[in-house]
């Protein structure tokens, strides 16, 4: 059944081999002009935002602020990464915010009241996420209730659950140093550099190996020069980031030294790579796109649609749990508002700004990170501006619109050319 039949015929479609870098660049420009923008609009939006804030507030470009950006945006970004999976199916999870709250509360309770070691508590929190995701997914896939309603109900129920767990209006402080470190401490500078070297080397190796394997098979592969350019760009950009984060950023270096890459950065990076691999290079990921693109076609191809749906909700809720742990770490406490207020909307917003479609079938985990960066930069920059409550809301709304507008106008031009 799954053996492939040998049909005659020469391979005509895999044409030109290994084009030159100049050729590749021209092709890229053509693609962008033609409308296949990829991450470009989100990156453009980010650059515009950063420039504006940097001009308005010089403090924006300090190394301390750069480090702050990562810890401030981490929780939302992590939740958004999980949401991408659900959004790819054309579903929504309104409860992701409070699910992160519930998991954070589980972490806090096991840590404080039960006094278990931190790794057990982290596992308990993530297990809670898995259970939540399974329940939500089963209700959506098996019972067939629209995900909006299921997760709206869960949104309410989890709000109650957090209240029960943290005992009606109080809050639980987290004093475990490992947990608190996640969002508040930094890697020692040498470790930052070591990690940097590791990442760049692995990236280069993967790129080279892949090109070699493809050209051995006679399939089109990227030219050496392009690969070199890519690796070089990564090395320079990441190197710059590590360098800046390793600068002394304490306001009072005599009192305390503050240097290094925040611990959340490798956490996000690892998850980004893992989930990207899952989505792009495994059958499971392929099936997620298929179900989101055309559920009926996926079903006819024998894909277990229900199981894929449930898995996506499990991933979403587990990532919410990770986000909840980071949020709990950052606040060093859990209260009934953890994961509440605008967390969910910001997380979905991050995914959508990054380019994920609410209708399913289109999106990447990287989108969540880029969109999360936009949201974090807006919050960070607005914090520096020092506006009053109402003005802040107004300006934040407008800035969000602006960032999305850059993106939309870019894509609009593409659509006008007949592409979607």
């Amino acid at each position, binding site marked *: *059944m799954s053996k492939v*039949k040998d*049909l005659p015929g020469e391979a005509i479609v895999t044409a030109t081999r290994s084009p030159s870098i100049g050729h590749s660049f021209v092709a890229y420009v053509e693609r962008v002009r033609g409308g296949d923008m990829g991450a470009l609009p989100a990156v453009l939006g980010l650059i515009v935002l950063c420039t504006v804030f940097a001009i308005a507030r010089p403090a924006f470009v300090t190394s301390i602020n750069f480090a702050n950006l990562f810890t401030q945006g981490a929780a939302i970004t992590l939740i958004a990464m999980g949401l991408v999976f659900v959004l790819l199916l054309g579903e929504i999870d309104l409860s992701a915010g409070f699910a992160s709250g519930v998991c954070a509360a589980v972490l806090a309770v096991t840590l404080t009241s039960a006094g278990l070691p931190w790794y057990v508590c982290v596992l308990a929190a993530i297990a809670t996420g898995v259970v939540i995701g399974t329940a939500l997914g089963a209700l959506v896939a098996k019972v067939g209730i629209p995900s909006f309603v299921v997760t709206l109900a869960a949104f309410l129920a989890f709000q109650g659950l957090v209240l029960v767990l943290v005992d009606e209006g109080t809050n639980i402080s987290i004093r475990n140093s490992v947990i608190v470190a996640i969002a508040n401490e930094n890697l020692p500078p040498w470790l930052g550099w070591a990690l940097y070297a590791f990442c760049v080397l692995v990236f280069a190796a993967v790129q080279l190996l892949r090109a070699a394997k493809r050209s051995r098979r006679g399939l089109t592969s990227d030219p050496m020069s392009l690969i070199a350019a890519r690796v070089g760009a990564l090395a320079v950009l990441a190197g710059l980031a590590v360098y800046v984060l390793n600068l002394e950023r304490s306001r009072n270096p005599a009192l305390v030294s503050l240097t290094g890459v925040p611990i959340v950065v490798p956490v996000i990076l690892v998850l980004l790579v893992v989930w990207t691999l899952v989505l792009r290079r495994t059958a499971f990921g392929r099936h997620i796109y298929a179900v989101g693109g055309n559920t009926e076609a996926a*079903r006819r*191809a024998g894909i*277990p649609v229900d199981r894929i749906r449930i898995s996506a909700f499990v991933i979403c809720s587990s990532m919410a749990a990770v986000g909840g742990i980071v949020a709990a770490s950052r606040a060093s406490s859990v209260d009934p508002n953890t994961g509440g207020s605008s967390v969910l909307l910001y997380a979905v917003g991050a995914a959508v700004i990054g380019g994920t479609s609410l209708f399913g079938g289109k999106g990447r985990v990287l989108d969540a990170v880029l969109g999360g960066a936009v949201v974090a930069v807006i919050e960070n920059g607005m914090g520096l501006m020092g506006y009053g409550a109402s003005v802040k809301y107004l300006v934040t709304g407008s800035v969000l619109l602006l960032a999305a507008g850059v993106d939309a106008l870019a894509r609009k031009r593409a659509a006008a050319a007949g*592409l979607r």
Partner: protein
Amino acid sequence: MIPLLEVRGIDKSFGPVKVLHKVEFAAYAGEVTALVGDNGAGKSTLVKCVGGIYPIDGGEILFDGNPVQVHGPRDAGELGIEIVYQDLALCDNLDIVQNMFLGRERKNGLLLDEDSMEELAAQTLSSLSVRTVKSIRQQVSSLSGGQRQTVAIAKAVLWNSKVVILDEPTAALGVAQTAQVLELVRRLADTGLAVVLISHNMNDVFAVSDRIAALYLGRMAAQVKTADVTHAQVVELITSGRSGDLGLKNGVTP
């Protein structure tokens, strides 16, 4: 000779509308069976029942003489039944290779083996005379009507299946491509598969089929050897449900 695929007395209603009435149908290994009928006769519905897309209301499906339960496309796939549906069922957001291997991706450990899939897809497509596809990494949404159809056919014949059902596969195809597909249909049957071909084109039907089954308003009017009937007889069966002593005996109301 027992048929490889047989359906007996299948009933199917959509709400109050009864679409299939006790339909009998059989397809034999090594033969091309043409399924013909007017628009709305129920051909696609019959195929979807066999493929597990629609649950059947009554009757049974036999595979190689044994009654089988087909509860979903997965079951059909596991029996070795491949179907090209009329509404092509491709994922617009995936590219050609991804669509062709959907649900049966080749793996290299945990990860996908993109390279070998790309190679194989290219081979299969070129055997179907597709010349205008710019790249097999093109998204399916950007394909022309005929190109989509070719992808769907290529997807179905890629696998070592036992029964291949094609629902109007050549409807959108050009002259050369149609010839190629008909040749492929013949070749598949000759290698021992049971092939079911749905078509409105009588020339094509007579060119490749061994048997012809004619549906009329949800009822099986007749299943005959192609050699035993004429062009005109088949058209009569399609349009009125009977032709001489062939076809439905009693008057039927839709």
